[in-house]
């Protein structure tokens, strides 16, 4: 044992979790029409947390009707400055209950408590705070300079990787712009969205302005196909995004999609190397790699390849994998068994196709879903691990010789959500950034998020922007 081995430092807050959750419709809790419930578990120990309602098409219809009524009766008519007060109130309530929400997020999703505490929850509150300020200034958000109209009822479907944060990204601009919402959280991580529903109820928003329906893909499909929804906003896989796009074609409903990615993180030989290593680690191991904008393809200038591999191999040994509730844990649990199986399958394909696997040497907890920090060298651009989104802590390392080659390889993907560039030369940084087909390009940093900054993709990573003034335009009639 090392002389300074860190003792367990578990987060001690225990949030109240109900035995069973209904659907949040029209300002109250309702049982699902089919009386069907499913279990949500803690992926770090596979223990049952709560029973959650499976919403049917009839439940979704009730939620959409409640949202329509709230839109016509209260929300579109309300003075924008008053709408802002409600949205500010949500921001404050999230901040007041930040620790409880952080623990809940970690329990339900498996992410390290340090991330839910320092990133997910504060950033979620920041989005409500930011968009609340826009509510009475919307004429400045549009190019025309005239007071724009909201869209109406928005169906919002969010993923399991940042459950509360993605809900905040979607709810905050929609509400500030005067829309009402039916939100569907992911099947494996519904608890913080349900806690947010309770917060919204306590904030005294008019009934029906926000509705939360839980369930699997059937619930999502019912929401997408509902004729009285004016807009769908979806964050999730490209596969499901394509199905939604097909389903909405010709209906006149507005759509924004934030889908998968296979981001290139480009490291030039002149990069600030210690910081680049931190950026690589943050880029792929943040939230166990369950990040749509993860820097999952590392492109290294050939002359720096050996140095990067040596440093990265050393660095991943210092990552602390284990109980997500321990404040010193860097890598928590994989979100679900299904996701763990997918990661294992893709890692197996990497080995079969001839790439070399390097992994963090550590003991995995006996229960729960865990996967060590990993990367592959000797990766060819044709390998599956270089092309498909793994959505896990697995990095594919490839090399390039010139900047042109780096740009060509970085762009050689159907995705285009994010990218990273590491070089000490400002001019090179800016020039390469301009050539990359990606919605966000981080220069000498990675995974930086702020409510004022737009986020979104190119091509199969989706369309539409969330965050900043751009995010407002997705919720206003032009």
């Amino acid at each position, binding site marked *: 044992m090392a002389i300074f081995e*860190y*003792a367990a*430092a578990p987060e001690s807050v225990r949030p109240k979790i109900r035995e069973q959750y209904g659907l949040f419709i029209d300002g109250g809790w309702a049982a699902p029409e089919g009386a069907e419930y499913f279990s949500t578990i803690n992926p770090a120990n596979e223990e049952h947390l709560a029973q959650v309602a499976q919403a049917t098409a009839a439940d979704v219809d009730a939620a959409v009707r409640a949202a329509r009524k709230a839109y016509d009766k209260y929300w579109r008519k309300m003075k924008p400055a008053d709408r802002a007060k409600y949205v500010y109130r949500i921001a404050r309530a999230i901040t007041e209950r930040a620790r409880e929400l952080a623990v809940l997020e970690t329990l339900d999703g498996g992410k390290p408590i*340090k991330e839910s505490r320092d990133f997910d929850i504060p950033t979620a509150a920041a989005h409500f705070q930011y968009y609340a300020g826009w509510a009475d200034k919307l004429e400045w958000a549009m190019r025309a300079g005239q007071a724009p109209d909201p869209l109406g009822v928005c169906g919002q479907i969010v993923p399991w990787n940042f459950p509360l944060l993605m809900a905040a990204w979607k709810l905050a601009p929609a509400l500030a712009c005067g829309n009402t919402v039916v939100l569907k959280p992911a099947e494996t991580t519904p608890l913080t969205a349900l806690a947010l529903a309770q917060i919204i109820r306590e904030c005294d928003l008019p009934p029906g302005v926000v509705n939360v329906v839980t369930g699997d893909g059937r619930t999502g499909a019912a929401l997408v196909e509902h004729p009285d929804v004016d807009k769908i906003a979806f964050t999730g896989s490209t596969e499901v995004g394509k199905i939604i796009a097909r389903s909405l074609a010709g209906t006149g409903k507005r759509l924004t999609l934030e889908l998968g990615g296979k981001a290139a993180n480009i490291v030039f030989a002149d990069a600030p*190397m210690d*910081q680049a290593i*931190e950026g690589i680690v943050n880029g792929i191991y943040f939230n166990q790699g369950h990040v749509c904008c993860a820097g999952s393809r590392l492109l290294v200038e050939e002359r720096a390849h050996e140095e990067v591999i040596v440093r990265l191999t050393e660095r991943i040994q210092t990552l602390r994998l284990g109980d997500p509730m321990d404040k*010193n844990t860097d890598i928590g649990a994989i979100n679900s068994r299904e996701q763990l199986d997918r990661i294992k399958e893709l890692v197996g394909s990497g080995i079969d196709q001839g790439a070399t696997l390097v992994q963090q040497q550590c003991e995995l907890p006996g229960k729960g879903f865990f996967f060590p920090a990993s990367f592959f060298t000797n990766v060819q651009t044709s390998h599956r691990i270089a092309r498909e989104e793994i959505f896990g802590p697995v990095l594919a390392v490839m090399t390039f010789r010139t900047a042109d080659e780096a740009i060509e390889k970085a762009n050689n993907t159907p995705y285009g959500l994010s990218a990273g560039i590491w070089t000490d030369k400002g001019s090179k940084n800016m020039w390469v950034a301009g050539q990359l087909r990606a919605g966000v390009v981080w220069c000498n*940093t990675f995974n930086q998020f702020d409510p004022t900054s737009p986020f979104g993709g190119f091509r199969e990573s989706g369309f539409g922007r969330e965050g900043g003034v751009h995010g407002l335009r997705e919720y206003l009639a032009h």
Partner: protein
Amino acid sequence: MLATHPLIPYVAVDAVMLEARAASLAKRSIKTTTKRAGIDLAIRCMDLTTLEGRDSEGKVRSLCAKAMTPRPGWPGVPSVAAVCVYPNLVAIAKDALLGSTVKVASVATSFPSGLADLSIKLADTEQAISAGADEIDMVIDRGAFLSGYERKVFDEIVAVKAVCGDRAHLKVILETGELGSYENTRRASDLALEAGADTIKTSTGKVGTNATVPTALVMCEAIRDFARRTGERRGLKVAGGVKTTKQALTYLVIVNETLGPQWLDPDLFRIGASTLLDDLLMQLEKLDTGNYAGVDYIPKD
């Protein structure tokens, strides 16, 4: 004379991710048994320091007594690593510490500015060692460094190291608060290590900005890369403004996770401080008894 040193490669450092990494390490939660081990380690790695114009024999003897036995009557509290004083108080400290494990460190080379002729700096060093100093804390010529005369900085370290020889351990103070960037701190670290510094040290404690977490991190990275390149382990000393147990534990975490646990040793890591010891003792008592002692239960030196 060629100003920059041609043989030492330039290493790029970027503030954004350096500070992000430092902040994440500063958030490690150090509790219970680890906290106790950390406090014990911080005491064993401490250079208990007095560097004031009004320092006197009485003050130094009092400090030395505390260095040897930080908490009289409490078994198991270790001695500190060294007492750090001005050169003309070395003999008194040496006498006061006779028979103990506590070493005498002396600042030298025209501390704190370093703006004197090399002959004076060498004489200063020689005087301190002759008076019994086990360790020399020299300062670099920041003016020369910032104007690009890296050779001057390098050669002066080499010359002071030659005076120290096998007689004294050499710590080189970079005075990072005057260097203006992390990149300069990294550059000065590399120069000092290549020139033969046994330990590189952040600060004199005499300027506005002293040791900071990102500064310690970038210096650890230089030491780590030097060890990788040469196989030699060199030390780090953080100094100035380290007042609380929490800060001290953070520096231990930085060293632990950047250089590795083998660096958590008084030969390779030091904290230069004057009031930190009191807080460490108070936290130690809290761990033992569950209560904070009143400040007057801790002997003032």
